[in-house]
């Protein structure tokens, strides 16, 4: 959609758009281009020069069982986090939509966790699940469950999934509640007069009407779980024990910043980039109206 009425001149708008554009070029586009270039080069061991190797880094990457394992691990992690945080949020939103006493207070008490940093949610969960100091972790060990996420990879995965989902419930809750509130009252009344209530009404009417919200949230949650959980995982397990909680983003960081493997890390960045571009395109295609410049 275009405006008919516009101001004249080109100098002022160019000046106005320039700060945003410069930041974009220097800190987004240039690094992205460099990542693509580096992903196709090989650094010599002494850092003296680099040679063009085409797609070798990518073939190496996908024939590396560790990388494939990390892809699968990331997919499982993302699916678990999205499913868990979205279902808890939906349950809470459905009940928060009831007209009960004190619902404004309930809402506030369910919305504030939006403000919690991923890394801080890791710290909070440490005090629950740490085998030495955590309230629940200690209790488990005292009751015959060998709980220690520093040793047991499965438990570590469970812990990062819990901490990551917990932090995301509020966000999903806000959107589900908004979705529920936008269902026209006439539709609710019609369903009520048809005698549909409780679970049946949810399944046949509410949930289908929430489909756009649900779809939007699936994409957002997958992106969150894949990228924004770096802080949670890194603070809790550093990707360990071993590589048991090493998602793709943790692996890029470990290979690039810790092990200084430039070629492989850049190739991994490019793979992630393709992933984000795919997810974002799906999202914007679905909600098309926002992309029409």
């Amino acid at each position, binding site marked *: 959609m275009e*405006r*008919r*009425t*516009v*101001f004249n001149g*080109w100098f*002022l708008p160019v000046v*106005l*758009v320039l*700060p*945003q*554009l410069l930041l*974009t*070029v220097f800190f*987004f*586009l240039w*690094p*992205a281009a*460099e*990542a693509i270039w*580096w992903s196709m080069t090989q650094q010599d061991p002494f850092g003296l020069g680099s040679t063009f190797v085409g797609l070798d880094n990518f073939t190496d990457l996908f024939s590396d069982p560790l990388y494939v394992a990390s892809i699968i691990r990331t997919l499982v992690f993302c699916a678990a986090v999205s499913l868990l945080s979205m279902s808890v949020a939906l*349950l*809470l939103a459905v*009940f928060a939509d*009831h*007209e*009960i006493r004190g619902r404004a207070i*309930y809402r*506030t008490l369910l919305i504030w966790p*939006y*403000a*919690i*940093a991923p890394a*801080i949610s*890791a*710290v*909070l*969960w*440490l*005090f629950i699940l*740490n085998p030495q*100091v955590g309230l629940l972790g200690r209790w488990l060990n005292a009751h015959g469950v060998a709980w220690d996420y520093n040793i047991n990879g499965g438990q570590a995965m469970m812990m990062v999934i819990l901490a990551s989902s*917990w932090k995301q419930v509020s966000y999903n809750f*806000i*959107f589900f509640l*908004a979705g529920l509130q936008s269902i026209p009252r006439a539709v609710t*009344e019609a369903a*009520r007069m048809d005698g549909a209530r409780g679970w049946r009404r949810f399944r046949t009417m509410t949930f289908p009407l929430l489909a756009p919200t649900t779809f939007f949230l699936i994409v957002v949650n997958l992106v969150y779980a894949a*990228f924004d959980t770096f*802080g949670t995982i*890194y603070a809790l397990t550093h990707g360990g024990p071993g590589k048991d909680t090493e998602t793709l983003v943790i692996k890029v960081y470990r290979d690039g910043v810790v092990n200084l493997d*430039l070629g492989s*890390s850049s190739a991994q*960045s490019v793979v992630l*980039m393709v992933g*984000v*571009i795919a997810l974002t395109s799906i999202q914007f295609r679905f*909600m098309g109206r*926002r992309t029409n*410049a």
Partner: protein
Amino acid sequence: MSGALTPAPDQVRGRLLSRQAGDEALPAQRPDWLAHIVLGVGVLLFALPVWLVLAGSTQDSGAITRGDLSLMPRFDGLAVYAHVLMYGTMGTEPVWHMLLVSGGMALGIACGKIVISILSAYAVVFFRFPLRRTAFWLIFITLMLPVEVRIIPTYAVMSDFGLINSFTGLTVPLIASATATLLFRQVFVAIPDELVEAARMDGAGPLRFLRDILIPVSAANIAALFVILFVYGWNQYLWPLLVATDPGLDTIVIGIVKMIGVETQTDWSAVMATAVLALLPPVAVVIVMQRWFVAGLTEGEK
């Protein structure tokens, strides 16, 4: 149940008119116990972990290390807050300093993003200039390039600019924002042409139109965006981890992860007090500005 209780027509009308008919299975007066229970459990699910940290911060560190963390606070233990604020824990900066860095970073990012996004959205919507669409798409693409996918090259660019270990490096690169630009573009496109025409007839120049009409009209959006961006800035972890190794630039989030890193000799009550202090500012911003924030989030992102 539904068969026996088919309501008479006038009852139906009565229900339709009644805004109180929140739960259809029960008469309006009876409390909806199931909803209270589910929501209560939900509230506890979020409140308990924070309460645990709050209570733990007032307890003896040695006892916590031995495994005696409890849900009951001891009110003689508040001195730990003064202590971490002034001195931090072993090997970290004082917490007041980390809060200051986080606060500066969050405010800088929030205000910076809002200003440059308003300006660029204004330029794209209200002017025609060469490469306007190209500029818009270049900004749009950044949506697909989060820091996480370009870790190493961004570090290289930062060090070329000499921005490693500087406050500028911590904030300025995060100020570019496609989301905010898209949001303001959406708001500006919806402004009626008549309003623009009227402003022009009154002799308002482009900048006056921006200041006197556009910014006041989008005040609610600005408020909502401020909350989202403040929280975003405050909660950054990977970015400061990459570009600032100088402890003097540690944010509170970086600082607290450093504190839990050495699990053997950790001063646990100090860590918990720091966690509480780290949570407080963004939570306060969300709660105080809740109304704008919720409306802005759900309208803006969809």
